[in-house]
């Protein structure tokens, strides 16, 4: 079971983690992109935590909808619409809920990942955030289906995200700015996959 309070704490903690990793994410983006991913994400999540108090008494679906709209209107770039879409689809999946079961989270992750894939037209292995998000959603779903607790399932999801993130290193990018580098994009970890891993890891660590 994940409560609404935990969700709120997770979003708050995410803003802190993103801020702490702002330069790191930006450096990753400098290598194969345009050196703004950390700056973009930080701008977005700072706005998110400013918005949270106004929806703290609403359901989780509404909270996610607000996160979505805030990211869409403040992040910009590629990651803004993508994370925005992730939370938009997630919000629809958990509309009206005050707490989430393992199945809820499973549905939420699945919906979010599909939204990102649709919006960005990327596939697994294209060296994008999808390479962290998609394995994480699958791992979570399998764990829950196999009877694991939410905490255990999250642990496996984060492990899968981390592996997916690291697996982007040797990949040649096929979507996003990094794709223009051709073979030179290999050898660098994808910034979006990294922020995705950080966000999921923060959920795991939120008590």
């Amino acid at each position: 079971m994940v409560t609404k309070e935990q969700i709120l704490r997770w979003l708050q903690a995410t803003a802190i983690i993103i801020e702490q990793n702002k330069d790191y994410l930006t450096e990753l983006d400098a290598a194969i992109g345009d050196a703004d991913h950390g700056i973009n994400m930080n701008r977005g999540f700072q706005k998110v935590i400013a918005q949270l108090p106004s929806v703290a008494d609403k359901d989780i679906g509404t909270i996610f909808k607000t996160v979505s709209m805030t990211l869409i209107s403040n992040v910009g770039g590629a990651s803004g619409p993508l994370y925005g879409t992730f939370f938009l689809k997630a919000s629809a999946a958990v509309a009206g809920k005050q707490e989430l079961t393992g199945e809820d989270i499973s549905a939420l992750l699945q919906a979010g990942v599909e939204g990102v894939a649709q919006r960005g037209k990327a596939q697994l292995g294209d060296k994008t955030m999808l390479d962290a998000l998609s394995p994480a959603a699958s791992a979570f779903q399998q764990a829950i289906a196999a009877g694991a607790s939410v905490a255990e399932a999250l642990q496996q999801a984060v492990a899968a995200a981390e592996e997916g993130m690291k697996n982007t290193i040797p990949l040649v990018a096929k979507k996003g700015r990094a794709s223009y580098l051709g073979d030179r994009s290999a050898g660098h970890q994808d910034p979006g996959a990294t922020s995705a891993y950080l966000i999921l890891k923060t959920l795991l660590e939120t008590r």
Partner: protein
Amino acid sequence: MKKLINQPENVVRESLEGMAAAHPDLIQVRFDPTFVYRTGAPVQGKVALISGGGSGHEPMHAGFVGTGMLDAACPGEVFTSPTPDQILEAARQVNGGAGILNIVKNYSGDVMNFEMAAELAHSEGIRVLNILIDDDAAVKDSLYTQGRRGVGTTVLAEKICGAAAEGGYDLSRLAELCRKVNLNGRSMGVALTSCTVPAKGSPTFNLGEGEMEVGIGIHGEPGCQRVPVKSADEIAEMLAISIIEDSAYTRTLREWDADRGEWAEVELTDPPLSAGDSVLAFVNSLGGTPLSELYIIYRKLAQICENKGIKIARNLIGPYMTSLEMQGCSITLLKLDDEMIKLWDAPVFTPALRWGM
């Protein structure tokens, strides 16, 4: 980092404030959400032209708002696509009842944000079409990449379509014209230095004294290859030949079907250049390269075109689509027909491009 700025987070806002203060007769600026629009907009009965993208490319796009070019520009943060709410708000401001053409550079961020904005505008009953510009001949295939980036042809499309909108083209005819300009334009650029995103504070990439990046975009990102620095003539030759000998390029793009309210995939092919063609030659500074050097590039480009039997009917030379203070240049060749020439020559009055009035 040495720049004439105050706080990095205020760069975009303060630069727009300065631009609006300098040209109140031409443009107005709004913030939160941020956009620049033509003074006096909406022009009733005229299709409105909107473009946008990350900041750091000045004068594009805000400097092209005015008579005979854009009705609004939506500047994002430096090198970061604008958000859908900026684009929607600009659409509401400039919509004169004849619909809106969004000219969108083919970067994943720009495409997605403009797509979301089109969906939102549609749901408000505003008729919108998005035409993508993807003219960067440095990108060779569309299957294993995001496809060609939108670079120099964007400026030319904004001028040509702006004149057409001013001249009474309706939305679908304007979209067709914009597609034509895109298919007939090809670009390629080199960087001699990196640039520094203010919020980052250090150069995006490091180039050795003897190196340059070939096939760069306009976001300070590295290009498709790094090679030893060459002479101006060799660089002009490398860029021009890549463009002139670029074969037919086919890709599938997503366009908005305003009648059915959904996205449709269209397959489009660039006709290659050939002897006998007339072109507009655009030599663009990436920001830190002075005009004198652009003319050295243009000199060689003119010789190459002459040798290839390509007639330069019009030209544009200067810093129009920049990457902050990056040193380097791009070349764009746009194959012209009579319609495009007439529209190119039509009067334009914006902060950065002006003639005939």
